[in-house]
């Protein structure tokens, strides 16, 4: 089913934010905002929840800590207890101080890369992906608000257009997408 989408373009982030606030107050659902840089404070207005990537980073980090601990215990204590200068590794705790630097490094390694990979996958930004922004100017100095007609069944297309036009936008583009 074809769907009508309106793209309202602004040339200032604050104008867009105020416009979004007014539209949302009237009950309009804003599907997406495209901007060349993060507009602080736009997320709660258009109903975007905060990302949970931070929790994932913590989980990846803890996984790294456990892997490093288990690995070093296996290598240095269980599999081949190395005797260095008469100071053998009988237990992991005997030598824990020497294991801290690598435990730390490995924790950071896992947390950082795990989070970065999750971030790229969740965003669906991967090498060679086609650009998804509706207008090339949104990575320069323009800000675009996307409003889908199907999500705003309370309003007719004309009503929506009228409301959007009052928000100080500079261009309005309508597209039919699948």
């Amino acid at each position, binding site marked *: 089913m074809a769907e009508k989408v309106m793209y309202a373009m602004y040339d200032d982030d604050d104008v867009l934010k*105020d416009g979004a606030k007014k539209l949302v107050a009237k009950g309009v659902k804003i599907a997406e905002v495209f901007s*060349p840089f993060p507009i602080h404070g736009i997320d709660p207005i258009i109903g975007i929840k905060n990302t949970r990537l931070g929790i994932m980073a913590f989980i990846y980090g803890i996984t790294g800590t456990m892997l490093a601990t288990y690995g070093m215990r296996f290598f240095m204590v269980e599999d*081949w207890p*190395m005797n260095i200068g008469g100071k053998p590794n009988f237990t992991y705790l005997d030598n824990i101080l020497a294991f801290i*630097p*690598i435990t730390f*490094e490995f924790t950071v390694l896992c947390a950082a890369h795990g989070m970065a990979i999750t971030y790229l996958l*969740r965003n669906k930004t*991967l090498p060679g992906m086609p650009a998804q922004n509706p207008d090339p100017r949104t990575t320069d100095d323009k800000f675009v608000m996307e409003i889908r007609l199907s999500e705003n069944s309370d309003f007719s297309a004309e009503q929506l257009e009228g409301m959007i036009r009052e928000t100080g936008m500079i261009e309005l583009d309508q597209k039919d997408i699948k």
Partner: protein
Amino acid sequence: MHKEAAIREPLILGHKTYHDVTEDVCKPIEDKAPRMWYILFGIALIIGLYGVGSILYLLGTGIGVWGLNKTIGWAWDITNFVWWVGIGHAGTLISAVLLLFRQKWRMAINRSAEAMTIFAVFMAGLFPLIHMGRLWVGYWTLPLPNQFGSLWVNFNSPLLWDVFAISTYLSVSLVFWYIGLIPDFATIRDRAKKPLSKKMYSILAFGWSGRAKHWNRFELVSLVLAGLATPLVFSVHSIVSFDFATSVIPGWHTTIFPPYFVAGAVFSGFAMVQTLLLVMRKAMGLEAYIHTKHVEYMNIVIMVTGSIVGVAYLTELFVSWYSGVEYESYAFINRFSGPYWWAYWSMMTCNVISPQLMWFRPLRRSLLFTFIISIVVNIGMWFERYVIIVTSLHRDYLPSAWSMHYPSHIDIAIYVGTIGLFFTFFLLFARYFPVLALNEIKTILKSSGESYKNAPDHSHDNHSNH
């Protein structure tokens, strides 16, 4: 919302709009490279290739082509390694630590400082690898199951800690840098006209769209990566210093090494950033973004870390005497009055005296003076590592084994070659990559841009709720 104290100097000079920021950063990439770029690139490439040739010669012949001997088993190689790692500390410090401290002036310099970091760590990583002599068994440093029985790498050894620290640092810095680059590549992609560059930047931009949700994630990922990279920066050079500090060589066996090395690393890294940026801002016309205030901030960091390094030198001297250990005292007496006195005093002059000049405001705001000092500092920091490594080794417990280190031409060629390679990479970066974090700059344009800052507040009159 977009307010900042009026007495703070603006970070972006002139009357810039969002579009101007894009133009200013993308123009040098889209235009033809100036002739000077080709000349510099040619010189750097030739020097770099000479270094690569020397490395190949060394790998084919053996470590004997270096000027090492049985007393001095570590000399220029490890000196260069520590020097490059040290230089590689500024980038992540600027982008991570200053991000956590919400220092907005970092935005003009973080991108190129991070690029510098990554290239410097590449150069650093070369030295331990070629020091193995047999580069192709470099993977033996990883804990891999192998055919030699249950033989694992030694996790008690600081040299192995180094393997983990440097590889984590390099890869995390690279990821941090690239995640910041993605939106900027998208800007270049959307402006590109030639099909080839459009294609290349599309691949590099990963299909970035600038959705609100993506920016939300972007900001959190930057913050968490900064939080992870901050202790990482400090840990890396601490671990490098453990290579020395955990040994029992007089002159190395010192507990102050970790903080002293970290301060020295930041000191030399910022100096390298100054050297590069002072030239880059001029050549690429970025004076409005990287101006005297940025240079002054960086000079203050150089002054503070230089002072920490100075205190560490004096503490070391004092403790060597106060310890009452004659070997320890001799190591230090030998440093400043032995055959390597000139290296010691070069280090003292460059690293202790020169940063103190930054107390004078006209000097730390002078671009020419800053440029000279930034080079002096890096010369001094190279001598610091040379002094620590070579003078501690060259006179050991047996006077019959005392020796001097004379670098061979291969020593010199590999060192100079890495400088050539470093500049080759940096010039390529400056040519094809956005050298300023342009989308980050746009976020501070309204709070720290000159034209917005000093303008009367008319644009926000309708914001009754602010």
